[in-house]
């Protein structure tokens, strides 16, 4: 795509000028990428009876394109991303079919031929590991696994209550239907979804750069009782493969950690050649709400693997949009290590990712860094120049001391 994929010993990819230019060049041929402005709206779609169902539709309309993000907690939490090349595309929902056991075709984005890209992410399981006797940080699995929580068997709150049109955000908050150990008696797993009407960065680390083409998901596990003293948690994420292959996972090394101190890596999931979707995250999670450096946990991502070997919980919205014949790929995220801070500190864990279509946002140096560098390098040079001129052209009062050589 660009110099971003360079391995370790190259120049950092973050020189702002060329990248910006390159991304503009890359973006130009595709109508749906790099839109100047988008009208971003967020709505909860009520079912035919008017009963609240957790189906959240984020629609980002540009001059030549529309992006649709459909989030739902029918079944396991899942999101569809659909990019169309017209500003007039719409989402149509057939509720009776969607709630039936065979939801194929219940969700459609019309007109169908305007669809440029579509895919989905499903958050299937929450893992828990006992890391007590594990010293190897990169071990896979990172400890003795406990039985995982299936997110399909969670009950979720009504997102209409947490919908905030001002910040374009909504939160899916859930706990297991069956909770014999009462682990989630005081706890919950939350998926906070946020869309953006302008580009920028959130105040909370890891401060991923977002644009109007993207939406952010923050997963937070709060207050649930761990089953061991040193429990590590993990998340299984499934996605649709393109043909027989799985989407590719990239680790970008960058030199810029200004927005996420001490994190020099950006992980990306790319579905294929442009125009395509992407998932982007920093390999860091936090064990405190403030998200300072002292509460940063490493976040390991496994490679993507096909999931033919075992059945994944089905997501009705994915089946409703893509039909029943899909091959899924999955990867696991693991948060924390056996040493250092962890979920056990405050029973808090949060991790963020960015989901979008088009060219993934690329970090550039902040104006402050550029400003300091310009002054730091410019001032001595200028001084040398000015002083040199002064000495050359100025009065030569002390010339009698010079000609010793």
């Amino acid at each position, binding site marked *: 795509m660009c110099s971003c994929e360079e391995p*370790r*010993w*190259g*120049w*950092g990819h973050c020189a702002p000028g060329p990248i910006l230019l390159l991304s503009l060049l890359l973006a130009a041929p595709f109508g749906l990428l790099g839109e100047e402005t988008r009208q971003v709206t967020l709505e909860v779609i009520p079912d035919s009876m008017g009963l609240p169902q957790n189906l959240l539709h984020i629609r980002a309309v540009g001059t030549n394109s529309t992006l649709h993000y459909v989030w739902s907690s029918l079944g396991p939490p899942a999101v569809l991303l659909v990019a169309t090349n017209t500003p007039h595309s719409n989402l149509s929902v057939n509720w009776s079919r969607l709630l039936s056991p065979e939801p194929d075709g219940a969700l459609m984005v019309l007109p169908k031929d305007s669809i440029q890209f579509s895919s989905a992410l499903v958050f299937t399981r929450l893992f828990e590991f006992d890391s007590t006797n594990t010293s190897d940080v990169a071990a896979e699995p990172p400890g003795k696994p406990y039985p995982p929580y299936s997110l399909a068997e969670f009950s979720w709150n009504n997102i209409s209550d947490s919908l905030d049109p001002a910040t374009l955000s909504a939160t899916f908050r859930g706990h297991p239907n069956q909770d014999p150990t009462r682990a989630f008696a005081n706890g919950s797993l939350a998926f906070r979804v946020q869309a953006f009407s302008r580009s920028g960065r959130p105040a909370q680390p890891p401060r991923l750069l977002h644009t109007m083409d993207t939406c952010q998901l923050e997963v937070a596990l709060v207050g649930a009782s761990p089953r061991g003293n040193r429990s590590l948690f993990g998340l299984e994420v499934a996605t649709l493969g393109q043909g027989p292959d799985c989407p590719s996972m990239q680790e970008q*090394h960058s*030199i*810029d*950690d*200004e*927005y*996420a*101190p*001490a*994190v*020099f890596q950006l992980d990306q999931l790319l579905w294929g050649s442009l125009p395509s979707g992407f998932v982007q995250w920093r390999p860091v999670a936090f064990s405190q709400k403030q998200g*300072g*450096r*002292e509460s940063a946990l490493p976040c390991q991502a496994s490679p993507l693997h096909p999931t033919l070997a075992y059945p994944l919980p089905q997501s009705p919205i994915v089946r409703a949009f893509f039909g029943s014949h899909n091959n899924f790929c999955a990867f696991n995220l693991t948060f924390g290590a056996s*040493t*250092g801070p962890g979920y056990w500190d405050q029973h808090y864990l949060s991790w963020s990712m960015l989901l979008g279509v088009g060219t993934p946002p690329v970090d550039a140096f902040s104006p*402050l*860094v550029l400003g*300091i*560098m310009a*002054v*730091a*390098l410019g*001032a*001595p040079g200028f*001084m*040398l120049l000015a*002083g040199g001129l*002064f*000495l050359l052209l*100025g009065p030569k009062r*002390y010339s009698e*001391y*010079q000609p*010793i*050589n």
Partner: protein
Amino acid sequence: MEEEEEEARGLLADGPDEAGRDAPAVPGALPALCDPRRLAHRLLVLLLMCFLGFGSYFCYDNPAALQTQVKRDMQVNTTKFMLLYAWYSWPNVVLCFLGGFLIDRVFGIRWGTIIFSCFVCIGQVIFALGGIFNAFWLMEFGRFVFGIGGESLAVAQNTYAVSWFKGKELNLVFGLQLSMARIGSTVNMNLMGWLYSKVEASLGSAGHTTLGVTLMIGGITCILSLICALALAYLDQRAERILHKEQGKTGEVIKLTDVKDFSLPLWLIFIICVFYYVAVFPFIGLGKVFFIEKFGFSSQAASAINSVVYVISAPMSPIFGLMVDKTGKNIIWVLCAVVTTLASHMLLAFTLWNPWIAMSLLGLSYSLLACALWPMVAFVVPEHQLGTAYGFMQSIQNLGLAIISILAGMILDTRGYLFLEVFFIACVSLSLLAVVFLYLVNRARGGNLNYSARQREEMKLSHAE
């Protein structure tokens, strides 16, 4: 730190001296090793002198070598971690003026050395106890006590060296002491992490107790240094008895009122010094984790590369010292050193190149700067103000180190390593600005700072006439 002054004095001390030459013969022949007039005995003393400073240099960078462990076990952020370095520097803002006075007038060199060694030992023990009792404030207090002893001990070490070797092998001795200091730092960087893991294995778990025990074991080097101080005191007294030589003095006269007479070039030298060193020592203090996080080094490799500056400095300091002596042109050498350091920090900040390149450059430029910058003070200050000027230079250097250490920790916690590196670049750039300004002022005033060695000789001759 103190060692630069050692170099400066080593380079300045070139007058032949006859101390002890006309001492009366000792009745009865002593074996060479026990005869203070023989080389063998002086070598023994030299060995003791080298190990006298070993403990304090070993323990100074203990926090850097155990950064991850300290932060994890004591549950502190980087800002608080860097306070360990700041607390070392605070007492020395004042003590740089007092060290020489205390040695000359109050304690004498022997007791002074022993007392400062005791401070170092006690400081390190308190530091370790802070770990064992899980009290970070106690660790900070330990570093404060350690700091009281550390820098003054270096002054005492110099005084011993002058007293025993003046007119003989003094420059070599200064060089060797300096190399030993670097070896102490290097061994610390590469040993402490390993030691921690061994202690962890034997105690069964990591934690503040493991940290405290590790630091306590590291404190053995300070005990070793204390033993050296005692042995030196004995040998020095014995030599005084046999040779009828006087007890060594630093000869430093500090007059704070001299400060108002300091010239513009001297102030510029101070600025160069402060802004240069604040971009080196705090960086090394934070370096290990930087190499782990940004370059993906293992803990051991990160320790090794973090000690490269010291490793290079050990052999290169004497070589560069000789080179600057032979060529003169100090400002140009300082300029080269500062520009190289700037380049090195830029490599670390803006590339993912193997940091061995940048750290080697930093090691070279650091050694070169020490050799070229510190002697310059002697060219712009009359001899009777030299003590005050060096004392002042070290004092504000320590002030700078204390403040910038805290700032560096805060920047790292909130803005990350890139911004920290940019901050260091800005510091080096200020230093560079001062060098350029110094060069221009020197040119415009026809000063002697940038004379070549030949010019200096000629000046000396014309003064003699």
